[in-house]
């Protein structure tokens, strides 16, 4: 059970040391404070985005309670537990993804949910957002880093397999997020810049191929709409035009809480789920956006600090990859709502209404806290 790297120096940063009660609970107070700040202010925006529907806020509150419990549980587990379970979780996840393809349920032409008798409905793809980086980290950290080319190849296969299965559902957004999580592990493991360059070149070649063979019409439409929203102002372009209008009309300090006309008069679609950042931008303006992005930046900073101070390679890779996945969520969501990126179904983490991603994200933060706090016990 005891990690090999007992001699690693951690005393260099006293700030990183949770003490007393925090230590006993395996929680990082700084990260916890930042998360609570984000979540609680997010609930106010949600109340407005859901057009003053308190039931929506209550339902989301219940989800956060559940998600906190999940985080707390994950934080109690030693990082080595994740490492040991990694292969089995990965196989289980792959089995789930295959099962989804044959017996999944869902809506709008996509099968994403697995409803097994005796278990609550869940999305195996959501689980893979955690499992894939853990699995990749497990595989790569077994050997010295930076990994050899063959190991990188195996690592990429570990990442690509679930990606392909998720694309088949089809769920391009989740597939890319899972892929990103895995690729970040490979990147942090020390894949050489040459290879990274070659990989990026490959992707840029693959992109057109994807366009013609891999993407569904509605996905192509989203990309086309991004390039010229005015081409279909009442159809696919509506969302982008209305969210840009909401953001732009917010101005420097916004229209005021609950005063956003775009969302309250129902011009803005998905105003409490994927497009909630437009509500915030409309009602709290540029100031609100700066505050929000600052909170995200601080969370990412703290998490990267946890990654750097982690005691073993596995922990570092997992922590780094989960942190960057979290950032990708933020960037893709805000980017799509502000019209920089195509509309893919990525929620604003910990603010958008919705249960599954919240639980997954909080589980990830649980893993990060586990990595941070269990190190403490050993060195103390």
């Amino acid at each position, binding site marked *: 059970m005891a990690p090999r790297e007992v001699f690693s120096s951690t005393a260099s940063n006293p700030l990183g040391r949770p003490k007393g009660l925090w230590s006993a609970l395996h929680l990082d107070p700084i990260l916890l404070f930042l998360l609570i700040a984000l979540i609680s202010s997010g609930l106010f925006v949600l109340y407005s985005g859901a057009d003053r529907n308190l039931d929506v806020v209550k339902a989301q509150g219940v989800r956060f309670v559940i998600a906190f419990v999940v985080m707390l549980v994950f934080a109690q587990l030693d990082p080595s537990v994740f490492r040991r379970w990694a292969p089995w979780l990965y196989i289980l996840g792959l089995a789930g993804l295959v099962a989804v393809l044959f017996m999944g349920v869902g809506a709008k032409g996509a099968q994403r949910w697995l409803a097994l008798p005796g278990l609550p409905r869940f999305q195996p793809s959501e689980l893979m957002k955690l499992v894939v980086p853990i699995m990749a980290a497990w595989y790569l950290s077994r050997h010295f880093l930076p990994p050899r080319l063959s190991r990188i190849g195996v690592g990429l296969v570990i990442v690509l397999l679930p990606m392909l299965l998720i694309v088949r559902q089809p769920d391009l957004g989740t597939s890319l997020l899972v892929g990103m999580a895995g690729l970040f592990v490979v*990147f942090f493991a020390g894949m050489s810049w040459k290879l990274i360059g070659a990989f990026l070149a490959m992707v840029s070649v693959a992109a057109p191929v994807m366009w013609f063979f891999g993407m569904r019409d509605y996905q192509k439409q989203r990309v086309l709409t991004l390039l010229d929203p005015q081409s279909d102002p009442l159809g696919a372009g509506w969302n982008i035009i209305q969210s840009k209008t909401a953001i*732009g009309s*917010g*101005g420097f300090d916004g229209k005021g809480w609950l005063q956003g006309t775009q969302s309250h008069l129902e011009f803005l679609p998905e105003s409490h789920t994927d497009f909630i950042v437009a509500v915030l931008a409309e009602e709290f303006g540029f100031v609100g956006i700066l505050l929000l992005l600052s909170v995200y930046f601080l969370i990412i900073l703290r998490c990267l600090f946890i990654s750097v101070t982690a005691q073993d390679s596995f922990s570092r890779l997992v922590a780094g990859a989960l942190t*960057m996945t979290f950032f990708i969520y933020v960037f893709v969501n805000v*980017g799509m709502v502000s*019209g920089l990126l195509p509309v893919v179904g990525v929620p604003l983490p910990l603010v958008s209404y919705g249960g599954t991603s919240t639980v997954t994200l909080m589980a990830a933060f649980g893993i990060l806290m586990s990595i941070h706090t269990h190190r403490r016990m050993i060195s103390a």
Partner: protein
Amino acid sequence: MPWGEFKDTAAERRLFQRRVTVMLVVVFLLLSVLVARMYQLQIVEHDIYTTLSDKNRVQVQSVPPPRGLVYDRNQVLLAENRPVFSVTVVPERVGDTGAALEQLVSILDISDEDLERFQRRLREPRRPFQEIPLRYDLTEDEIARLAVHRHELPGVEVEAELVRYYPHSELTAHALGFVGRINRDELQRIDPVNYAGTNYIGKSGVERFYEALLHGKVGYQHVETNARGRTLRVLERENPVPGEDLKLHLDLRLQARAHELLDGRRGAIVAIEPATGGILALASVPGFDANQFVTGISVADYRELSESKDKPLFNRALRGQYPPGSTLKPMLAIAALDSGAVTRDHTIWDPGHFQINSAGRRWRDWKRGGHGWVDLTYAMAQSCDVYFYEAAIEMGVDTMVDYLARFGFGEDATLDVSGALSGILPSPDWKRGTRNEPWYPGDTVNLGIGQGFMLSTPLQLATATALIANRGEWVEPRLLKDIQGDRSADEFLPSETHEPLQLKNPSDWEFIADSMAEVMHGVRGTARAAGRGAPYRMAGKTGTAQVFSLAEDEEYDAEEVRERLRDHALFVGFAPVKNPQIAVAVIVENGGGGSSTAAPVARALFDAWILEFSAAAGSLISKTDSQSETP
């Protein structure tokens, strides 16, 4: 576990730290991109998006002004506005109009006619986002049923609209006219701003003539709407200026009496108050219910009205052009006296016919054996044709036409009566111009008794009669008496253009008035039966106009042909002879003789106006008016 390999943990840590540093830079750069993007949208392009946002939510709606009301001279409401609930469709918001209509048909009772009309309006040019009415006059029950399904039907609304209503429509349709939906031609003509919220426009009569006054000025409101176009609240409002309420000279009691008197017949009555020129009654029988036309009459109903042999839609009082016959004789007598063609004592021998030269055509007198020795008074009382044949030849056509023109024949002399026709005042020029034929002396003879080419409307006859009642003082006939509020009717009435008809010997007016009184009260007067027993003296002249022919393709049964070939009965007159309060023209189509059919009608009107209604305040005022204005 393959942990046997040597691991340089410090090197791995350093490698990881380098990679995290790279990622930190990437995170920072990408977040900066987001901030820059937000700066661009929220600060740089803020104004653009504010405009877009306001355009989204704020819509300018026009608020139509309530149309002015119309009252008769006794403040009886003739035209009002009634709230009507209708279901309207905004095609731009509905999306699939066909599906929405299908659903509406299943909810409401919508006839094929409604649908047809809707489709027609859909094809017609209109303002974007303007609602198209689908069905009018929804019942409470239907409104409730629609409310249940409203959320499924975006762009479908129940609208309360003020719609014109004529409470006495059968009586007033021809006098008031009516409003109807704005049609394509009118859409080109009207001010699109002022009519932005208006669906109706005056189509005829007072409603048409005083359209600008009745309509008022449009108001605006800025309303906040949601994405589905539903109005949430009013942000700003500029109230419309309601149309002016009009008061007409018309007296509904007299109008009703006129209709009663002509009931079952076809004909027209025009009654004018000589002192003011105010039209007291303007009846064309049969009438129709103008309310049907307001929201759009059904094809079947319209066909029934327009194809009826009695022509209820035809306004006989303004547009019926009849030969005036002997009712023209008072005006011709004035012409003959004033031009010197005859004197008051001039006497002729009437053998029962008239010839221009001994070998020529004989013009018959209506009395077979002739009247014997006849002077002007006798000729008027007995309506002696030969006397007027001779006078006509003596005057010549030009003199006659000059005088008749001074009486308002051959023109529309009214100030504000929309759609009045001018009849025909024939002259040599007219005949050459329209028929390319020379004027024969025989034409002059025919004109001498109001026959031949001469045509006049009942309104023209009443106008000319009022001129005699006024002893040559011109007061153009008019409908508008007053505008409620500060403004005066004179502001809106066209200016009066007629010079008074001044005779060389003004006492000739009295002479002719007396001769017309002989018609009513003289022992030989043609209308002495109608004039008998009156407590006041009245002046009049009977007339009979020949019905020329029926169109060959018209099919009537024998009984009806006989009835429809009978002469039109005419009468003009005024009462009392001194200080006249009313001048009338009566025509009863196919009524036979003027003395037997038309004169009693006029007598009844005189009695009603002078004896029955005089107790009313309005009549008393007009009596004093007339005393002060007539010499």
